[in-house]
């Protein structure tokens, strides 16, 4: 088989197939270490804090939040958009990179897709809590009711309901379908009868028959083809929540592509944050190599630059439109009372990723880790800036106001971080973090030159 002499191997170390299976399934078979318990204690505490604050919100009402008549959307929606955006990297890696035949995705797609699911779960919580009466949340679905009414199909907020629920369901399906062969591997590997039964059930009776594989491959490809436009549609629809309104600062036609690239940008940052730690803790350095980190960093420069151009385009169009409200909205955004949020957004999202043009920095793990956190923060502030600065000074100066989150809102946000990391920590103990079967397929042509067992070659 042809092995490129120039390209960096995707999997280092001369591995055999058995070694790949053993190394990737080691965290599932072994016992959790102290670090894992310490980690899950912290994340569970955060989760419980969040649950308490959510309970308080539901019990006491949305008045416990720092919102007021002028600023009706604050941290809740900021967090919602932030989490949905983070989810986008997983689908981008598993669907779009699959269609582009990027083999490096095989090492990171599984964990990135899991991250997508957890992020969308966190995101979905916010609109639900924000309703004030979550028990009536089912009102968003078009079902025959005594009121004789249907939901408003012209509203982007309703499109969101369909987009997010479809996105979650299809991502879950895509993730699970890809996981089935690996669950089969784990089933055949674990010793305990109880575990064998559980994994046996979850594996759906997978045997690895060539006929199943052939269909599985076809299905994965079509699912990727379906998920690729889906992921682009989801954040476009989220951006329509803003763009279809007539609020200066929101009423912008570039929102869909701008939000989508921002989403992929922030998603890759989160993937890097998680995987730089995971590869170290689970000893998967030979699968998630520095080369993988570099590839992800390249996507970060590309999407980060698109985001930067979008920011500048917004400013230009605000000036060029000649609309004084639009002009004021952007002037106020950059120099008004929330200038610091705008400055954080600009520094973290536009300037910091440009450092990645240097190859040394792209391949530096510590730098990448710090940068990924910066981008996570910057992208959170982007949503905060768009939402709060566009609202806080509306047409009547008498209703101008400022917004500050209360402890309840902060607590809920910390709670979702807790939920996200708790789910991820559970995931790495239960399922293989790397797609075992997929890594084996790239082993021969993209691995380090194997000790070739095929003597006839």
């Amino acid at each position, binding site marked *: *088989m042809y092995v490129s002499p120039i390209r960096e191997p995707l999997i280092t170390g001369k591995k*055999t*197939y*058995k070694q790949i*299976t053993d190394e990737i399934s080691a965290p599932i078979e072994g016992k959790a270490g102290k670090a894992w318990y310490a980690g899950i204690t912290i994340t569970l505490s955060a989760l419980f804090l969040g649950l308490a604050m959510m309970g308080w919100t539901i019990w006491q009402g949305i008045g416990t939040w720092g919102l007021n008549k002028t600023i009706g959307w604050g941290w809740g929606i900021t967090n919602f958009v932030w989490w949905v955006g983070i989810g986008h990297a997983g689908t981008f890696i598993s669907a779009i990179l699959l269609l582009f035949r990027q083999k490096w995705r095989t090492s990171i797609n599984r964990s990135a897709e899991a991250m997508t699911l957890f992020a969308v779960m966190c995101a979905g919580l916010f609109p639900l809590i924000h309703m004030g009466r979550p028990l009536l949340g089912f009102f968003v679905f*078009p079902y025959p009711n005594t009121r*004789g*009414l*249907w939901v*408003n*199909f*012209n509203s982007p907020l309703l*499109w969101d309901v*369909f*987009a997010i629920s*479809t996105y979650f*369901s*299809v991502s879950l*399906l895509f993730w699970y*379908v890809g996981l*089935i062969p690996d669950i*089969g*591997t784990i*089933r*055949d*590997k674990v010793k305990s009868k109880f575990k064998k039964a559980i994994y046996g*059930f979850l594996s*759906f*009776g*997978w*045997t*690895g*028959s*060539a*006929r*199943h*594989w*052939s*269909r*599985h*491959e*076809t*299905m994965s490809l*079509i*699912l990727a083809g*379906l*998920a690729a*436009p*889906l992921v682009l*549609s989801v954040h476009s*629809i989220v951006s*329509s929540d803003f763009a279809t309104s007539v609020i200066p600062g929101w009423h912008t036609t570039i929102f869909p592509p701008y939000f989508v690239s921002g989403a992929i940008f922030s998603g890759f940052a989160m993937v890097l944050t998680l995987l730089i730690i995971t590869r170290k803790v689970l000893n998967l350095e030979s699968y998630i190599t520095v080369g993988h980190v570099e590839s992800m960093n390249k996507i970060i420069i590309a999407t980060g630059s698109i985001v930067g151009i979008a920011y500048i385009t917004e400013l230009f169009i605000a000036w060029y439109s000649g609309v004084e409200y639009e002009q004021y909205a952007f002037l106020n955004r950059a120099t008004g009372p929330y200038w610091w949020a705008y400055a954080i957004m600009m520094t973290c999202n536009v300037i910091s990723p440009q450092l990645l043009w240097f190859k040394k920095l792209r391949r530096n793990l510590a730098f990448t880790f710090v940068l990924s956190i910066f981008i996570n923060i910057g992208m959170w502030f982007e949503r905060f800036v768009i939402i709060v600065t566009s609202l806080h000074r509306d047409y009547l100066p008498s209703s101008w106001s400022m917004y500050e989150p209360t402890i309840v809102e902060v607590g809920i946000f910390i709670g979702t971080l807790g939920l996200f990391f708790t789910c991820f920590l559970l995931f790495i103990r239960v399922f293989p973090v790397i797609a075992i*079967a*997929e890594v*084996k*397929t790239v082993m021969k042509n993209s691995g380090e030159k194997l000790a070739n*067992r*095929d003597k*006839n*070659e």
Partner: protein
Amino acid sequence: MKRYISAYFEDEENLLRATKELRAKDVSIQDVLTPFPVHGLDTALGYKRSNLPTVAFICGAIGLAIAFGFQTWAFTVDYPLFIGGKPHFSIPSFIPITFELTVLFAAFGMAIAFFIRSKLGPGANNIIHDERSTNDRFVIIVDLDEAGNQDAIVKSILEKEEALNIQVKEIES
């Protein structure tokens, strides 16, 4: 009485060559179990292209029709609602939900078809021939005729490709 021979390879190249040779000799291969999708194996085994994409297309079309039809019916026939003077039948604003449901139906329809067709699903209890066929062994199961005329030729092909654990099994049927 049904007879078959089973063996495993340690490398997919051997499996591929053996498969091609066996097929050239008109031997019927019952099943091949591999730990990962081996490139070119489905053509070597002579599998036809799967119909799953067609299933996905049909399910997607159903989703599209349901979503678009329902929105149209609800907003023009059942309860025409005035929203900011916008038209009742506004195609552009029906597109997002139509698209989402098309994808949803296509994806789930295809996955369900895959599970039914492959007889996989929660609680499916398929026989596992070799626990390492999901790990690092490429297992081949070849049908033999009752008279045993093919035994020698199959065995020689398997042996040439360094197959291990070659076993002839017989089951009453």
